């Protein structure tokens, strides 16, 4: 008896299980990070782009609430959310970016192509900061209040409907 012939069936059963589970799960984007309400971990990231400075924890503790956008030039949904980030910037939000596992050349190309809404862009080559703040994918956007505390997390790309929500959360964080 050759057990290997059962392998495809077992792998397929595993896939079926996962897919069936996923289908029954409601599609929600509000899985909150355990870091909400906590202070940012300490980090110092070098700049990912020649025109923007890098990011350190101290930059996010100067009293002004900001959006912290986790993205990457290789991520397709990030292209989709670029116009919304522009819209947020136009409505007065200050956006700090962290580029995940990225290459400065690709970052420059991406920004040239899709616009640069960021005041600062840090370079997180090993996803250390990403993991540290409880983000598990790109793109994600966090609201950081003036004291460096995470107050809100948006998972996935920002759609047009999400813009007012994020602005509201920023306003709350500023109060």
């Amino acid at each position: 008896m050759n057990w290997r012939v059962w392998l495809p069936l077992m792998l397929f059963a595993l896939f079926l299980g996962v897919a069936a589970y996923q289908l029954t799960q409601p599609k929600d984007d509000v899985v909150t990070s355990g870091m909400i309400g906590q202070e940012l971990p300490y980090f110092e990231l070098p700049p990912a782009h020649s025109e923007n400075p890098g990011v350190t924890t101290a930059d996010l503790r100067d009293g002004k609430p900001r959006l912290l956008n986790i993205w990457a030039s290789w991520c397709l949904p990030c292209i989709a959310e670029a116009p919304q980030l522009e819209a947020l910037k136009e409505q007065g939000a200050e956006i700090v970016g962290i580029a995940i596992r990225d290459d400065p050349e690709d970052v420059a190309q991406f920004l040239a192509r899709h616009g640069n809404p960021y005041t600062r862009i840090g370079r997180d080559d090993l996803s250390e900061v990403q993991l540290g703040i409880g983000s598990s994918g790109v793109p994600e956007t966090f609201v950081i209040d003036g004291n460096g505390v995470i107050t809100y997390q948006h998972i996935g790309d920002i759609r047009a409907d999400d813009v007012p929500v994020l602005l509201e959360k920023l306003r709350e964080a500023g109060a």
Partner: protein
Amino acid sequence: MIAELGHAALWMAAALAVLQLVAGALGIRDGEREGIAILSRPAAILQGALAAFAFAALLWVFAITDLSVKLVAANSHSMKPMIFKLSGAWGNHEGSMLLWVTVMALAGALIAAVERRLPERTMQATLAAQGFVALGFYAFLLLSSNPFERLPIPAAEGQGLNPLLQDIGLAFHPPTLYFGYVGLSVAFSFAVGAMLTRAVTPDFARAMRPWVLGAWVLLTLGITAGSYWAYYELGWGGWWFWDPVENASLMPWLAATALLHSVSVLASRDALRVWTIMLGVIAFSMSMLGTFLVRSGVLTSVHAFAVDPERGSFILALLAIYIGGALLLFALRANSISEGERFSVASREGALVFNNVMLSAILAVVLLGTLYPLLTEAFDVRVSVGPPYFNPVSAIFALPMLAVMAVGPLLRWRRDSFGRISKELALIAAIIVAGLIFFALFEGVAILPLLGLALAIALGVASFLPLRGRNLRRLPVSVWGMVMAHFGIAVALFGMASESAFSNEKLAALEVGQSTQVGPWEVTLDGIEPVAGPNWTAIEGRMLASYKGGEPSEIAPQSRNFWAPPQQTTESVLLTRWNGQLYAVMGSEADDGRWQLRLWWKPFVTLIWYGGVLMALGGVLAIIGRVRRDLKRRSIRRKIEVRRADMEELR
């Protein structure tokens, strides 16, 4: 009335599929041509006719824009050009499922009408499997997505078609892929039939081969066209994004490519029996899996047009029944199928097995990358897998595969030695080394494109080596097919590597009258004009592009606004020269009155798609060669029978 007739035809076709299943099942049990089993073939033929009628009825209600039919009201518009009215019939979930089942029924009818090589029991089992698969789709259509559903009150006007989909290429792109998937469903049915009746023979492989080849040709064309569509329509300048939907079409292609080669080994050498059966099941699984991923919305994609979790559950259930059933059957029967003829490592079979393993590995890499987000999401971890994973990891397997592909066709069947072809090996190695050195002289060429360029040239030369020393006029057509398909891969590979090694990109903000440089091109913005089409208005940028200071050509990319439904799209312009393409995209107006332009110069990028077309042509040649040889064999057999009958009479 027409809609109701179509609906009725569908029900009758479904009933015939049941008959096909029952007749086949009884045929397997009793092992005789007696009784109900004899109805298998007529049932399959009639089922094909009825499904075709139902699809014709759907085309008709779309052609006359019958707005009392829900599907027409939701997807069409009286103002649309006729060709897009017709393509609207399958440009939606219900219609595309009907198209799928129609083509599947027609394929079943065709094998029922012409396939006489296999034992009748195997044929009945195959038709039963085909009927069983079709039945699932009929159930899907009739129970959860009836394309002929009427509205209680006819709509005043249709709701249009997604303007991004209002494109001639896209009107024919999904059906091409569908036809390919259906070809694989026939291969699947053959595999199941052969497993059920334990008749995995070279005859079975010969019966299956044209369907695999046909499916492979259509998938190749479908992927090539889809990639070109994404390239010029999305306006992002890329030609492959490793998007789940693209992967969904690539995975069946990889499996079909492996199957195509293994079925050839089985047909001519009676080896690789289990492997061929397995790939037959996998290939169709991949096409159903692709359909599931695209339609269910479990993965986010730029291409997700028709997402619905309920339909996803239905497809998943079908997937569980068919693929789960086939894999179970495989597990039960695989041990009783012997491996067939033996061969040594240094042989044509050896090379084919190596490449089949590599293809399967690439398939596994793509499958894992595509499903990984799904898997991790189950543990509340969301990830996005992109090119940094797919490119290098698939290259690990693709590069050795391409190298072996250059050598494989030079080897003899069964047993050979590399010493016999040492001259050719040295030539191929020399070209690779020379290519590596030559292209390394250019600045900034990354390692993967560099290897790709060198391998492409070596493979291009090597693909013609099997012709050496043979009488070209007497060479079988199928060998020409192989040569052309392999050369097509070399051509496409060169295009891909060149695009990623030598592309130039420029984002410029120009005032009217200003110009900018990209690669060897100088582009001048001559003017900005508003233009209007049948259902859109656009801003058109009139530009003059001159290649190395030569005579300028006029180009006019547009940024279009559709109004039904409202949506903005870019109409990029491609200016093709023999050595590459200028790609121009019109952006929006900046605050200071300058206009944003995106320009690319992509050397040899067109070779990607020419290569794809060459591959498909090679596949067509192979089909012609195989079918012609089959017909010849059949007519000889008939002549022998006639002569034998004459002899009997004389006695």
